[in-house]
């Protein structure tokens, strides 16, 4: 069996001949960027073969590399087949890096009303005169402390098993943990002494890419710890479809385990940070998209991606943590958000909950952007929703120098309309290596303002300027010269990148407009637009409107709710009454299948323009663009 040695770490691993380098990397538990799930399409899994050789189709994949890189042995890990011993250099840029994740809280007030409590009781030991059983003694004690009625409480077998010991060892001074369950209260834990302050719950956003955990004290509701990490399923494919495909090929148990592992990791990090014991976490609330929750529950999601797209469960669910492999208190339960449809999952219900739009009379629009996007329109009485694939462009995929919000990503940029010189800011203020979603939106808006691109996103090659040039395949604009970058390459945006970006934004805008038309609502009737999703908070609102990512409304009507999923989960964690409304919300939201909507394609072509073909929908943008154009000499006149 060939041995692969990874540089620079010199980690070694043996694999079967015929495996790919990516297989080896994953077996070695190195977290590699595999955006396309190892299909040879994203070009992100770059490695350099230093010693030995692999089978790799240089002709087919040559487009991902410069000649110089090829000469240094560059190849795609997922496409390189191992025959013999190897040394493989994994460049930093191919590794998954710590992502900047939104953790600010919404600051919405909600009633504190948890569903687990601790009661400290001091009992009198049994005597011949008072021979009542341990349990009776305990529940009566709890009732006397202001707890629920004694007959409403019961204890599961495992608690009964250790009850006599704990009572006697503690000298009859114990803390019992009670959980509200249908029909009564369950004693889920019994500890020696007074541990009333050690009661915690955790709210989880189980995203396709990241997992976020908030630990809160259930004694007073305050946040004690926050942590986040990548969803470890990424090693089985970047997007949701590749996960489902992976599950189909008997991969469901592995995906389930990885989901639990990712959650455990986030919980542990947060718990360690706060100096608390995971055993003191008595409740877990999880909001995630429908596929993620199916996988976490170990339910086959395959039928959801085929017509007629049916999920297996749609109501909210409660189950015991150990059954899902979530490592918290033994008897803790896991509450899982309900879903509307295959595409509108618990994460979106959580968004709606967090935004409060379901409690208002005014109409609002909620847009959750990731690789997939979801849109909800409505108010207290009614809600419409739809979902679609935005394509990865807004997350930096399908864009030559696109990247996630990692260090070195250009996150803000502006272009001087006269000199065409850019000014930008990168994450962690290091030399730029690429550009992330919020930067791309800024960039496109300013290229339009500066008339470098027309409204279809085509670059005006008639402009004579060193930054506007014909690239290898497409015209391009140079954002940063190789001397100023962190990867020794000119960072550019090509006409093709822009096309992909416009396709992404067009699907989102078209979805918004389709819903509004279905409901017969004009943009003037929108009281608010809520942005949710990982990068919502970093978007420049003005520029988002400028390029027509969302309908034009007054800037102060746009609210970022940040990570709405985790906010919603938090609310449900500390206020159990909110949980009841979740099924209501889920029921109230009517789902509109965009593919079945004949007008959607029309809206899409209409939206594939900057900002939109119907300029009357964007009056403010039009005024601004007119002003910009006045400053320029008309182009095209000889």
């Amino acid at each position, binding site marked *: 069996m060939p041995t692969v040695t990874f540089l620079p770490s010199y980690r070694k691993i043996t694999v079967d001949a015929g495996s790919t380098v990516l297989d080896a990397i994953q077996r070695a538990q190195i977290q590699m960027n595999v955006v396309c799930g190892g299909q040879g399409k994203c070009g992100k899994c770059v490695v350099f073969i230093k010693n030995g050789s692999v089978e790799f189709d240089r002709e087919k994949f040559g487009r991902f590399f410069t000649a110089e890189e090829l000469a240094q042995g560059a190849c795609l890990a997922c496409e390189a087949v191992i025959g013999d011993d190897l040394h493989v250099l994994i460049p930093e840029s191919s590794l998954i890096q710590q992502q900047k994740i939104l953790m600010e809280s919404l600051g919405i007030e909600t009633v504190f009303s948890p569903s687990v409590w601790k009661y400290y009781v001091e009992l009198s030991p049994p005597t011949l005169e008072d021979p009542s059983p341990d349990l009776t003694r305990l529940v009566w004690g709890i009732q006397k402390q202001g707890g629920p009625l004694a007959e409403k409480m019961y204890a599961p077998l495992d608690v009964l098993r250790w009850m006599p010991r704990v009572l006697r060892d503690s000298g009859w001074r114990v803390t019992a943990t009670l959980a509200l369950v249908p029909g009564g209260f369950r004693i889920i834990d019994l500890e020696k002494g007074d541990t009333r302050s050690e009661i915690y719950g955790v709210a989880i956003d189980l995203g396709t890419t990241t997992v976020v955990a908030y630990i809160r004290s259930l004694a007073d509701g305050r946040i004690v710890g926050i942590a986040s990490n990548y969803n470890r399923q990424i090693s089985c494919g970047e997007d949701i479809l590749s996960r489902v495909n992976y599950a189909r090929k008997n991969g469901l148990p592995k995906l389930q385990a990885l989901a639990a592992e990712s959650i455990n990791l986030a919980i542990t990090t947060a718990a360690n940070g706060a100096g608390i014991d995971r055993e003191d976490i008595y409740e877990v609330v999880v909001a995630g998209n429908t596929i993620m929750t199916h996988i976490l529950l170990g339910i086959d999601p395959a039928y959801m991606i085929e017509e007629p797209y049916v999920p297996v469960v749609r109501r909210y669910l409660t189950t015991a943590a150990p059954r899902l492999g979530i490592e918290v208190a033994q008897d803790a339960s896991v509450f899982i958000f309900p879903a509307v449809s295959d595409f509108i999952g618990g994460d979106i219900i959580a968004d709606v909950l967090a935004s409060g739009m379901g409690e208002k009379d005014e109409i609002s629009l909620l847009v959750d952007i990731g690789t997939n996007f979801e849109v909800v329109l409505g108010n207290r009485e009614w809600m419409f929703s739809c979902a679609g694939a935005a394509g990865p462009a807004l997350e930096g995929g399908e864009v030559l120098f696109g990247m996630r919000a990692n260090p070195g990503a250009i996150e803000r940029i502006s272009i001087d309309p006269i000199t065409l010189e850019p000014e930008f800011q990168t994450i962690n203020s290091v030399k730029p290596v690429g550009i992330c979603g919020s930067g791309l939106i800024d960039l496109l808006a300013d290229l339009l303002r500066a008339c470098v691109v*027309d*409204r*279809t996103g085509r670059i005006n090659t*008639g402009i004579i300027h060193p930054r506007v040039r014909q690239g290898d395949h497409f015209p391009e604009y140079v954002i940063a010269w190789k001397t100023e970058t962190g990867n020794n390459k000119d960072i550019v945006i090509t006409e093709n990148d822009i096309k992909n970006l416009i396709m992404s934004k067009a699907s989102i805008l078209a979805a918004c407009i389709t819903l509004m038309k279905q409901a017969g609502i004009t943009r003037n009737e929108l009281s608010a637009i809520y942005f949710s999703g990982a990068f919502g908070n970093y978007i420049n609102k003005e520029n988002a409107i400028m390029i027509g990512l969302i309908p034009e409304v007054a800037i102060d009507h746009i609210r970022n709710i940040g990570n709405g999923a985790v906010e919603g989960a938090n609310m449900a964690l500390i206020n159990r009454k909110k949980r009841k409304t979740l099924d209501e919300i889920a029921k109230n939201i009517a789902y509109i299948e965009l593919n079945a909507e004949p007008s959607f394609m*029309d809206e899409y*072509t*209409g939206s*594939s*323009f900057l900002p939109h073909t119907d300029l009357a929908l964007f009056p403010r943008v039009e005024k601004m663009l007119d002003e910009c154009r006045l400053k320029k000499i008309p182009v*095209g006149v000889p």
Partner: protein
Amino acid sequence: MSENSPDSSGKIGYVVLGATKAEGGTRTVSFRLGGESDLPFIGMNTGQGSIPLVAFEICDDPEYWSPIVTSYTGDLSNDAREWAGVAEKQYGADIIRLYLTSTKRRGFDNFSSITTVMEEVLSGTGLPLVVEGSNEPAIDSDVFQRCGEAGEGERLLLGTAEAGRYRSVAAAALAYHHSVLAQSPIDINLAKQLNILLREIGVKADHIMIDPYTGTLGYGFEYSYSVMERIRSAALKGDTDLAMPMITSATDSLSVKEVREADPAALEDIAVEWEFYAALSSAIAGSSVVCVRHPKTVPLLKSAFRELWAGKMPGEA
């Protein structure tokens, strides 16, 4: 309520094709198209609009032309000057549409020949001209420059501008005061987008004609028909970015299977009917100029339009 009830505010703008001596050109007629504020063939007796016109299509290199036409015309099609004259005098066309098919040859670079062809056709006919320039983006700029220059003062309609390729043709049109034929692939949004793009580089609305692209009968005609109706309705509802007159040409009429594979004895009839049905329906859907390639289709369309038209005729005040 109907989406497009005619009680609407919009009006199709005017575009002038051709320039007579008095107007600074050498054409014997010029046409002012547009002006309708109602659906096609409806507002005509209130003085709106003008009767649809028939353009006959010729080319400067018949190798790229349908054999159905070239076998009918014989040698005539080898001489664009003559052909244009015959189209005017014998076929009775209102407009000549010249395709510079010679530019299709691989590696074409004989740009001075374009000037020659243009001069010949302009001398061969007194009718207004539509000129279709190059098929290759790389030579667009040279070709349109020549066309525009040779036709200076004649108020040509220069084609074809598309969303990805409009700058050269617009530049030539702006420089020599011609109009632009704006073609988009059977989609109202794309048609509108192109008009916006043209406007933003300085082409005025009264110098644009919309070509919504016409799939011929049985081959996407239903889409073209509806897009034309939609464009017209939108214009009548006040969308000024779509309120330009339309020009259509079901170019594929002579090459579709029904025609190509017809029994030789019936081939000509079928070709003519195929063009006639598509062209008349296009006019009904709102096209101001319909283009055809078979000489026998021209008089048919002309008399059909006369039979349907109750408004003023070109030239009438």
